[in-house]
C-alpha cells in the first residue's frame, strides 16, 4: 500500500551516506559472485598450474594455491556459496524468528510463556557441540545443510526483538479502535500491525543475513563446514591447513578474509543507515 | 531574594531552523513571592524555567540577562552555573520522581548526590532527617528502593533533595501533574510550607493547571507562544484579568460549581502559532477578538497598575 511516507523514506534513503556506501559494496560483491565464474574458464578445483603456488599474475589474477588451483576461480565460486548461506540461513532465521516473536507478542499469556521458553532453550543450546555431533554422523554435507542448520539456531534474537515490537504495537490504542470498527483479528494483524513492522522486518533480515554469513565463515574456517563445494571460509581453512601463513601465500587467504569482513561490515553499515531512514529521531542534524 | 529577568531570548535549535521558544521575557520576582508560571503547551514556560538553571543544547542562548540577588547569573555558561546550581537556584524537573535510579536505595542515592556536589559540610544527617520530618516522610525511607514508594512519597523526596542547600529560588516544573488529587494538594501545600519556613525564599511554579496556582501562588505570570502576556497577583489574574488571552483562558476553565446547563464556557478558537516562523508582533493576534492594526508590533510588557503587567496595545490605550 503506497503511503506518502514511502516517498519520504526514499528521499532520505537515497541521501543517507551509510546506506549508499553499504549497499554499493554489497551489490558489488553480489555482482561479482554472479558474473565472476563467467570471467574465468577455470573450475575451482582444477589443477591448472603445474608450478603449484604462484602469486597473482596476469594469468591468475589471485594467484594459485599449493595444488595449483586458481584462487580467483575459487573466490568467485566461494562468494556464491557465501551469499547462498546468507539468503537461506538468514532467510530461515528471520522467518522463524518473525513467526515465533509475532505470535508470542500478539497472543500473550500462555502462548507467550511457552514460546519464550522455546526461545531461551534454543538460545542456550551449544551450537558448536551440536554441530560436532552432526558432523560425526553426516559424512557428506553441503552448503544447504549448513544454511538450514544456521537458520534453525540463529532465530532467537530476531524473535525477541519482534516480540517486543509487537507487544508495544498491540497495546496502542489504534488496535483497540480497529476492533471497535468491527475488524477481525487477522485483518487487524495484516492491515494495521504488519505495515508498522515492515521496517523492523527489513532490518532484522539484514542482520540475519550478515550474521549467517559470518557464522558460516567461522564454521567453515574451523573445519565444521560443508564437505563438498567451496566457500570463502573453506578457502581460509585450506589456506591455513596448507601453511599459507608461514609460506607467505597471502593471496590465498587475504581475498576471502577481506571479502567476508567487507561484506558483513557493509551489511551492518547498511543496517545503521536504514535505521536512520526509518527512525527520523536518529537522523543526524 | 530578588530575581530580575531582562529581555531573555532563548531559541530551540532544530534541523529546520530556530524555534523561537522564548522571545523577550522581562519580569521580576520579589522576596518570598511564589510566582506561578502558567500557559498552554508550547508557550515557553518550561523553556523559561530551564533557561534559568540549565541552558544546554538544543536550547540556545540568544540574549538577555538574569540577575539573582544582585549577581548576574551566567546562564549561557554551563560550567560557571555549577556554582549556583542547588545552592542559589534549584529545580525540581518534570518527571523527576520517575527518574530515581531504581537500583539504588534512596539513602545511597542521597549520599552520592551530596558527595558529588561536595555538600558534605552543609548537610548533616540530622539536617536530612529534619527535612524528611518536614515533608512527613519516615526516616526509614532512606533504606527503601524507589519502587517501594508511592508517587506522592517520591515527589516529596525529590523536593527534599532539590532544596537541601536552601536555594534562594526554587523552580518547580509540573510537579503536581501526575499525582492523585489528594497527593497533589499535599505536595502543593508543602511548597508553600517550604517558603513559609524560609527553606527557600521564592519560587517559580510551572504548571498548566491554573486552579492549583489559584490555591498556592501569590502571583501568576501568563505566557503565550513564547511571549509574556500578563503578570499580576493571583486574585487579579483570576477575577480581573486584562490581557485578552488571560481573559479567554480563565473563562474557559471548568471548576466545580459550574455546569454546562447553567453556564456554557467558551474555548479559544484557532490554534497556537508554530514558533519556527512566528507571526509578526503580538503572537495572539490571530485568535484575539480585539486585535487591531497596532498589533503587528510586539507590545511591550508594561506595568499598568501596581504589580500588574500586561502586554497588550488595547490595554495601553485605556491607560495612556
Amino acid at each position, binding site marked *: 500500500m503506497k*503511503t*506518502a*511516507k514511502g516517498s519520504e523514506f526514499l528521499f532520505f534513503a537515497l541521501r543517507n551516506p551509510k546506506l549508499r556506501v553499504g549497499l554499493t559494496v554489497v551489490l558489488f560483491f553480489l555482482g561479482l559472485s554472479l558474473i565472476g565464474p563467467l570471467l574465468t574458464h577455470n573450475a575451482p578445483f582444477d589443477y591448472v598450474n603445474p608450478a603449484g603456488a604462484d602469486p597473482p599474475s596476469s594469468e591468475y589474477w589471485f594467484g594459485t594455491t599449493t595444488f595449483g588451483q586458481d584462487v580467483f576461480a575459487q573466490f568467485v565460486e566461494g562468494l556464491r556459496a557465501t551469499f547462498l548461506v546468507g539468503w537461506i540461513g538468514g532467510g530461515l532465521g528471520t522467518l522463524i524468528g518473525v513467526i515465533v516473536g509475532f505470535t508470542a507478542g500478539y497472543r500473550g499469556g500462555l502462548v507467550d510463556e511457552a514460546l519464550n521458553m522455546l526461545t531461551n532453550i534454543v538460545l542456550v543450546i551449544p551450537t558448536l557441540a551440536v554441530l560436532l555431533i552432526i558432523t560425526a554422523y553426516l559424512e557428506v554435507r553441503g552448503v544447504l545443510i549448513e544454511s538450514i542448520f544456521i537458520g534453525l539456531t540463529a532465530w532467537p534474537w530476531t524473535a525477541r526483538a519482534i516480540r517486543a515490537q509487537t507487544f508495544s504495537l498491540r497495546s*496502542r*490504542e*489504534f488496535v*483497540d*479502535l*480497529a*476492533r*471497535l*470498527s*468491527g*475488524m477481525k483479528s487477522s485483518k487487524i494483524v495484516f492491515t*494495521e500491525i504488519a*505495515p*508498522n513492522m515492515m521496517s523492523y522486518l527489513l532490518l532484522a533480515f539484514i542482520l540475519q543475513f550478515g550474521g549467517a554469513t559470518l557464522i558460516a565463515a567461522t564454521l567453515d574456517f574451523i573445519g565444521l563446514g560443508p564437505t563438498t563445494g567451496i566457500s570463502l571460509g573453506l578457502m581460509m581453512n585450506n589456506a591455513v591447513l596448507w601453511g599459507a601463513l608461514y609460506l607467505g601465500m597471502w593471496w590465498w587467504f587475504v581475498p576471502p578474509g577481506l571479502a567476508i569482513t567487507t561484506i558483513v561490515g557493509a551489511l551492518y553499515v547498511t543496517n545503521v543507515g536504514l535505521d536512520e531512514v526509518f527512525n527520523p529521531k536518529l537522523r543526524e542534524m | 531574594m530578588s530575581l530580575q529577568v531582562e529581555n531573555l531570548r532563548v531559541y530551540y535549535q532544530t534541523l529546520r531552523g530556530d524555534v523561537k521558544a522564548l522571545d523577550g521575557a522581562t519580569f521580576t520576582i520579589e522576596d518570598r513571592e511564589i510566582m506561578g508560571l502558567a500557559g*498552554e*503547551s508550547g508557550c515557553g514556560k518550561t523553556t523559561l524555567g530551564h533557561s534559568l538553571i540549565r541552558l544546554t543544547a538544543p536550547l540556545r542562548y540568544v540574549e538577555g540577562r538574569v540577575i539573582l540577588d544582585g549577581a548576574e547569573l551566567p546562564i549561557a555558561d554551563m560550567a560557571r552555573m555549577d556554582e549556583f546550581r542547588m545552592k542559589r537556584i534549584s529545580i525540581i524537573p518534570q518527571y523527576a520522581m520517575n527518574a530515581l535510579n531504581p537500583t539504588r536505595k534512596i539513602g545511597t542515592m542521597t549520599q552520592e548526590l551530596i558527595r558529588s556536589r561536595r555538600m558534605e559540610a552543609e548537610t548533616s544527617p540530622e539536617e536530612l532527617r529534619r527535612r524528611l520530618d518536614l515533608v*512527613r516522610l519516615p526516616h526509614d525511607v532512606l533504606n527503601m528502593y524507589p519502587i517501594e*514508594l*508511592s508517587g*506522592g*512519597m517520591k515527589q516529596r523526596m525529590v523536593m527534599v533533595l532539590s532544596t537541601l542547600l536552601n536555594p534562594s529560588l526554587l523552580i518547580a516544573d509540573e510537579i503536581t501533574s501526575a499525582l*492523585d*488529587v*489528594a*497527593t*497533589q*494538594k*499535599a505536595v*502543593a*501545600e508543602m511548597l508553600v510550607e517550604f517558603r513559609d519556613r524560609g527553606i527557600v525564599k521564592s519560587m517559580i511554579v510551572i504548571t*498548566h*493547571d*491554573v*486552579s*492549583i496556582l*489559584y*490555591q498556592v501562588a501569590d502571583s501568576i505570570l501568563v505566557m503565550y507562544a513564547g511571549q509574556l502576556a500578563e503578570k499580576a497577583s493571583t486574585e487579579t489574574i*483570576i477575577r480581573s484579568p486584562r490581557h485578552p488571552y488571560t481573559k*479567554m*483562558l*480563565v473563562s*474557559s*476553565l*471548568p*471548576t*466545580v*460549581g*459550574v*455546569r*454546562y446547563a447553567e453556564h*456554557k*464556557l*467558551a*474555548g*479559544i*478558537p484557532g*490554534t497556537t502559532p508554530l514558533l519556527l516562523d512566528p507571526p509578526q508582533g503580538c503572537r495572539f493576534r490571530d485568535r484575539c477578538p480585539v486585535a487591531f492594526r497596532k498589533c503587528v508590533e510586539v507590545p511591550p510588557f508594561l506595568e499598568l497598575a501596581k504589580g500588574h503587567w500586561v502586554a497588550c496595545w488595547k490595554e495601553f490605550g485605556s491607560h495612556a
Partner: protein
Amino acid sequence: MLRLDGVSKVYKVGTFGGKELRAVRDVTFDVKDGEVVSLIGESGSGKTTIGKMILRLLSVASGTISIDGVDISTFKGEALKEFYRKVQGVFQDPFSSFNPIFKADKMFQVLREEFYPDMEGRDWDKKVDDSLKCVGLNPDHVLHKFPHQLSGGQLQRFLISRACLLEINLLVADEIISMLDASTRIDVLNLLADLKSGGLSILFITHDLSLAYYISERAIILQRGRVVEMGSSEKVFQNPLHPYTRMLMASVPRLDKRWEGVEQQLGHGAQPSEMAGGPAGGDTPGGEPELVEAEPDHFVAIAG
C-alpha cells in the same frame, strides 16, 4: 440503555498467576437514554477497565453488562458488529489512536468496508462530510492528512465523528480531553454536551471532578474498583456523604474557593488521612459494602 450488574474483573498476577488482582468489584449502575453519566475515579480505580469491558475489549469475570436488556457477552460475529453500530469509544491519547503510517481518514474507509459496503461513492462522501461538520470540523482542513499534521483537539473530534457517522446510542469517552490544551478542552466538552442534546448517551470516564460536574447529570465515584457513591451530580457534589468522596471534594483545586474555605464547608473528616495508598484491590476489613439510598437518587456504600 446500558446496565452493569455486579460486574467484576479479576487479573491473575505474579509468577504462574498465583495472586489475584481485583480491578473491578461488584459494580452495578445504569445509563439511561440521552443521559451523561460520569465515572469518576483516580488511578487504580478500575474506571478504564470498566470502559473496556463495556466496549467488549476486555472480558467480564463475573456479572453482566447489557444493552437494552441484552447481555453483550453473547455477541459474536454479525451481532458484535451490530453492537458496534450502537456503542463506540474514544480514548485518551489522540496520537496513539491513529496508525501513524496511514492518513487519518483511512478510519472512514475502514468503517465503510465494515458497515456500509454497498453505499454509493457520492452518498458516502456526503455522509463523511456531514459527520465531520457534526463535530465542528471543516472537511477541507482535515481530510487527506496524516495524524501528525493535525492537532490533538482535531484528532479527538475526528474520533468523535465516528459516533455521528454510525449514529450510535452510547459513547464511552475515556479521559478524552486530559491530553488536550486548556483552550481546546472546553470545546470538545461542549461538543459532547451538544451531542447529548441530540439524544446520545455518554459514559464520561475521568479523574477530574470539575469536568465531571460541568457536563454530567449523574456521577459515580469509584474507589479501588468499587462504587462508593453515586447519584445525581448535584447531590453527590454538593452533599458528598462517603469519606472518600468528601476527601476528593476537599482536595480538588477550585477557582472559586481556596482549600481552607472548602474544608470549612465540608466540615471535619474530609481530610486525606493517608497519602501513600495501599495496594489496589486489597480487601477491606469487615463485610462487603452495600449501596444504600441515602436520599432519592443518591446512594452511598456502607460497610456491611
